[in-house]
């Protein structure tokens, strides 16, 4: 028998993540065009492209650029933030159930934004809105991290998240009730469930720089998150600076999720579903999951936003309702699967 001595492919490299990212990117662009076509006044693809390039009819230009494009861009930003943060938090906490919505990070950010908006602080500067949301998201992430540092189980993590998100949700409703200009139930629902309709580029500008900075910080963590699959002590023995890694993930999630929630309200389950679906395509490596999760999150939010406009309801559905309808069964399935760890 001759000894086999050929170059063997590494499984991970045989499935590079570039094609996956390209497929997701193509899907994202396709859905973006679809999203630009749909609405109260349906536009053809030619009208949409004409509107984007500034060559079409003035009305089409206005609809595409001023009304629909901000909505599409916000879907990218919020989906990308939630997807990447979910993947990064799952890698850091080494727990597939970690997610900004479930852990109460989104609802804390939402509380921060509501406090600024309804108590008039945004009159000082519009930047107070994302700033407060990011600060609250940061506090929530730090609290969770502190609570779950020492040998946390799935159960403690989820319970801490449930506690945090119900507290933030209750305080948000209370703040809206006590606000100097009391608001109607629709507003409360907006912040608790989230929506990206009727937004302008002013809102996009408010969150864009922070989302980009946050995503960059998260992507920097990729190699270290891969190594963290071995456990904290061994990752540290391989030269991973754990406190730097924690800082980057916490800050990156707080910036990106906090900033988007400041303009969209909380949208749940995206950070749970997307990494879960994509993990197998990156050979289960937590670091490699980051970029595909960001793209996949944007695809999911955009798809959900198109779907809610296709469903004929007397009043437009909230985006957070649609993502929860998709996400909650996923969450249940994951909990059932990890039931043995939790008991």
């Amino acid at each position, binding site marked *: 028998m001759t000894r086999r001595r050929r*170059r*063997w492919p*590494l*499984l*991970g*490299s045989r499935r*590079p*993540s570039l094609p996956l990212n390209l497929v997701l990117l193509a899907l994202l662009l396709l859905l973006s065009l679809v999203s630009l076509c749909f609405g109260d006044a349906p536009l053809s693809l030619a009208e949409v492209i004409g509107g984007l390039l500034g060559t079409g009819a003035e009305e089409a230009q206005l609809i595409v650029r001023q009304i629909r494009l901000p909505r599409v861009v916000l879907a990218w930003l919020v989906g990308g933030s939630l997807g990447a943060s979910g993947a990064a938090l799952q890698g850091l906490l*080494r*727990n597939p159930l970690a997610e900004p919505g479930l852990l109460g990070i989104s609802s804390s950010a939402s509380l921060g934004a509501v406090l600024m908006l309804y108590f008039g602080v945004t009159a000082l500067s519009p930047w107070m809105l994302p700033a407060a949301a990011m600060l609250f998201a940061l506090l929530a992430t730090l609290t969770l991290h502190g609570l779950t540092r020492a040998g946390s189980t799935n159960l403690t993590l989820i319970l801490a998240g449930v506690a945090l998100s119900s507290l933030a949700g209750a305080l948000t409703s209370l703040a809206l009730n006590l606000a100097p200009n009391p608001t109607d139930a629709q507003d409360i629902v907006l912040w608790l469930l989230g929506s990206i309709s009727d937004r302008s580029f002013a809102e996009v500008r408010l969150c864009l720089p922070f989302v980009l900075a946050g995503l960059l910080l998260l992507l*920097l963590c*990729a*190699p270290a998150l*891969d*190594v963290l*699959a*071995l*456990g*904290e*002590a*061994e990752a*540290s*023995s*391989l*030269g*991973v*600076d754990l406190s730097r890694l924690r800082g980057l993930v916490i800050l990156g999630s707080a910036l990106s999720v906090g900033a988007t929630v400041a303009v969209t309200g909380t949208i749940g389950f995206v950070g749970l579903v997307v990494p879960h679906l994509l*993990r197998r395509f990156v*050979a*289960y*490596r*937590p*670091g*490699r999951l980051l970029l595909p999760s960001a793209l996949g999150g944007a695809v999911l939010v955009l798809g959900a936003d198109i779907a809610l406009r296709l469903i004929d309801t007397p009043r437009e559905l909230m985006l957070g309702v649609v993502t929860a309808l998709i996400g909650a069964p996923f969450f249940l399935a994951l909990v059932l699967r990890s039931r043995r760890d939790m008991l």
Partner: protein
Amino acid sequence: MTRFEVAGLDVRLGGKTLVHDLTFDLGEGELLGLIGPNGAGKSSVLKAIMQLLPHRGGIRLGGRDLAALPARERARRLAYLSQDDGVQWPISVQDLVALGRHPYRGSWWRGGGAPRLDDRDAIEGALRATDVWDLRERKVTELSGGERARVRLARALAVEAPLILADEPVAALDPRHQLRVMSLLREQCRQGRSLILVLHDLTLASRFCDRLLLLDRGEPIALGPPGEVLTRENLREVYGIRAVTGEHQRQGYILPWECESGAG
């Protein structure tokens, strides 16, 4: 020559002394066994060497102070196998072993890239040395305990560090796998690597280690060849046991038999 020296090591955590005034050294290709009852401070010694616990005293490898080395430099010189198997995700065996090459990785943007050729040689060598080559495409979460132990060892070998520290590498393995892993580790010494192992099994310790370091409540009790450390007296005073000892193929064995009456 990579000589490893620990001088006057003190490990304190939260006002409690875990290790007190420990001094030892280790030559190239030497296997040192750290033994002692539960809570003796064995794991703390390894963690202090890995800079995972705050400590005082000198820890030098090849004349260089480990604490002063940048993390990546240190990571290339020391491989560490922790006590608990913390692998959470179902990643493939070869991807897991490839993580051992992290200290040699280039800048972050190469993060997702395939390992380079010398990395591949190291990974392949580690997979073959631990006899898990045929498992390389399996998921780590689907392996048996014995297979997983060898895969984790392969991950540590892939670092190609001159010094390997392993915390109870054969705990929870059946006798056959214990012998197999210990022989693998012994083989690493023949190739010029130095090893420090935390062990509970006194027979394995006596059979495979060049020297043993016996700790009790953070204090070094004895350091020397197994025959000189595993004396009747030490077993009684440190472990509180009586053991059956003997010789087979000119190597000593030791069989813990009963608790010493009246001892701690």
